């Protein structure tokens, strides 16, 4: 399901605004990891890393799954695709809008030609 909200998009930006969280994404791009792994890798407390992962999870950039005692994190590609979709939607809106502008420009050009013939500028 494509579920796009402004909140979601903002959450992505917030999530991506932090160097550690970008590092975590990069790391998860290579392999799934547990929160403990990530905390170690980024020299951080478990609590600190949990918070970062929470932000990423909320933004849909990461998904986590608890198996036994271990919470495994992996990249939530869905959100990244949505980012691309956001750009595409933005483009579609502007394309529709500027397509209309095109018509207005054509019309003005036509008018100018007609007026130009009637009265020399």
């Amino acid at each position, binding site marked *: 399901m494509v579920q796009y909200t402004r909140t979601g998009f903002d959450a992505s930006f917030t999530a991506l605004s932090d160097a550690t969280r970008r590092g975590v994404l990069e790391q998860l791009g290579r392999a799934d990891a547990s929160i403990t792994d990530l905390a170690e890798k980024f020299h951080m407390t478990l609590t600190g890393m949990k918070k970062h992962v929470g932000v990423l999870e909320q933004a849909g950039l990461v998904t986590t799954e608890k198996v036994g005692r271990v919470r495994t994190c992996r990249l939530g590609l869905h959100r990244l695709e949505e980012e691309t979709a956001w750009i595409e939607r*933005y483009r579609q809106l502007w394309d*529709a809008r*500027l397509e209309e502008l095109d018509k*207005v*420009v054509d019309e003005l*050009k036509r008018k100018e030609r007609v007026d130009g013939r009637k009265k020399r500028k």
Partner: protein
Amino acid sequence: MDARRESEPTPMKNRTTVERKSEREVVVTRTFNGPARIVFEAWTKPELFRQWWVPKSMGMSLLSCEMDVRVGGKYRLEFAHGDSQAAFFGTYKEVTPHSRLVWTNEESDEGSVTTVTFEEKGGKTLLVMHELYPSKEALDAAGTGAAYVMVETFAQLDELLVTLGASVGGS
């Protein structure tokens, strides 16, 4: 992009490109088959502006459009979208005839700044629209300007996109 030669008439429609320059900026570009003077006019005369700013596909209607296009002048657009209404307003910061327009969005304390440039080459005009948000937080807060209106719009476009199917990545 602007180094490309524009000598041949192109029957194909001009392409709109969108690029996110940073987490605070979005840039839209497109070429128009007309002089900058005319394209600029269409951006600065309300009676022309309202003919294209709200295409039918947006599913919104423009209730009013006031534009006082001069430095320090205000604009205000009011939209209806189903039962809800939205206003889009701000101030013109720069008005350089036929080449540059800068305005702010003032729906919130941290609105975006939009810069539109018109560059004429061989009878065609390259339009570049740049939207800058003052901070990440401002973008987080989004409720501003174009983004606000567009997100409203997207809610409607979403349905269409879903109908169009997997063309946006199959998610």
